[in-house]
């Protein structure tokens, strides 16, 4: 593989990944980066690329990837969204290990910190980047993003707008109820697990990142990029 190589992997080659080979002497330590979801995915692409590049400079092999139905990965968002995406973290970890990494760590941003929970035994370091501990606040934020994206439908009464687009939450083709169910199911568990995991090698990076902005503005927060990569 070249210095930076993009490819497809997973049982049906459905997942798009970009692998950053360690530039310095390889430590044999792989770092998997699990992106945030929905509008946060678009906004953090630049930051995640920079984090991957900085870790490669430090001698880590890094894999960043897109969940199925997002980014450059195949298909639509799966109906059983959380279990499918959580399984894909397992596939990505397997892929990273098979590329020669003896030790694995993970950087999980936002809701990915919840999705990665069941795999935490796989990872040496478990870096949560602004994990979701408060599912109500997170859903309120997603609702604000959803509503802002539809705000131009001004000739449609708000109630009708609300009804009409419930089955297409945040343009995903998936209902709000499906997403909310997963968020509430996993987010409470995130806090309990994090309380156990963080003292044992886990690192919680709290950033000043404006995740609450409802638009698709890019995150260029260099201090966050530095703090996440400094966790290694």
């Amino acid at each position, binding site marked *: 593989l070249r210095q*930076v190589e993009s490819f497809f992997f997973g049982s049906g*080659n459905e997942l798009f990944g970009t692998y950053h080979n360690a530039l310095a002497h390889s430590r044999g330590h792989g770092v998997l980066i699990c992106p945030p979801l929905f509008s946060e995915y678009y906004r953090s692409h630049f930051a995640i690329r920079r984090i991957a590049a900085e870790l490669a400079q430090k001698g880590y092999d890094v894999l960043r990837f897109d969940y199925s139905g997002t*980014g450059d990965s*195949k298909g639509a968002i799966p109906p059983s969204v959380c279990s499918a995406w959580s399984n894909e973290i397992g596939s990505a970890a397997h892929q990273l290990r*098979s590329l020669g990494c003896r030790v694995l760590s993970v950087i999980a941003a936002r809701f990915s910190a919840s999705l990665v929970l069941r795999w935490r035994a796989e990872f040496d370091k478990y870096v949560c980047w602004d994990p979701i501990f408060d599912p109500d606040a997170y859903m309120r934020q997603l609702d604000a993003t959803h509503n802002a994206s539809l705000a131009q439908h001004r000739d449609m009464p708000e109630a009708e707008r609300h009804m009409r*687009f419930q089955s297409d939450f945040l343009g*995903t083709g998936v209902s709000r109820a499906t997403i909310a169910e997963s968020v509430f199911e996993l987010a409470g568990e995130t806090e309990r697990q994090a309380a156990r995991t963080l003292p044992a090698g886990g690192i919680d990076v709290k950033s000043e990142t404006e995740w609450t902005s409802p638009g698709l503005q*890019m995150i260029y927060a260099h201090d966050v990029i530095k703090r996440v990569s400094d966790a290694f």
Partner: protein
Amino acid sequence: MVVPSPAAVSDGVVVRPIDVDARAGLFGIMTHSSHAARTTGFIIINSGLLHRVGPFRLYVEIARRIADRGFPSIRLDQSGKGDSDSRPGVSLAEAATADVSTAAICLARETGVKRFVVGGLCSGADDALLVGSAIVGLSGLFMFDGYAPRTARYYLERFGPKLFSARAWQRRARATVGNDVGGKAINLRNWGPRAQMIARYRALLEQQVRILAIFTSQANHSYNYVSQLSATVGRSYARDLLTEHYYPEATHLFPVTEHRRNAVNGFANWAERHFD
């Protein structure tokens, strides 16, 4: 060892990452049919600072739909965006020209296409209009919410109904006291003077370049009826070369799946009707 695959294949559509120019660090995703071979290829360029997938994966859906109809494409990360490196010491216009020209060469090399259609949404539309004439083999341009000069009818369509609408006056009053945040147009576009922009359209149409101009409700501070662009560019230039699709129910970034699907279908039909 689990060997990753350089491409994903699904329903006869092949998707593969490609180094458009390895030395310049220019990256894109090529999408093409596994069986059909057209002679026209599409280059889809970034919308603002978003990477090559486009807002709400609009570009992914376009690339897959037109590949299904035999057209190859590159979803390009222009230099300094997505996974492409920046071009230091080069102006944005020069970089955009170099990026799109290089993507055309790459697409021709990889798929054998001889003609190109270039475009994108928002700044992608602006860049396409800016660099289009410099692309050898350009036969089409597509623009989502690109530039449209206003006309007398535009003002009539926009303000006429509101003059007699109590609701519109109430909304105006609310906006005046600062409680209404909807419908404000934020213009970050670096459009040139009206005459210069119209001249760009005319120059391309004179070269027999087909143009698809797609507008949404959020172009409503510059566009609000079908054929507005043809009227300002001039019917003698537009002839059958300029096509306008207007989606007043959709918003700028196409966050609604149904709206996105309609626009992508309209786009694919235009491609199939006009290009080999």
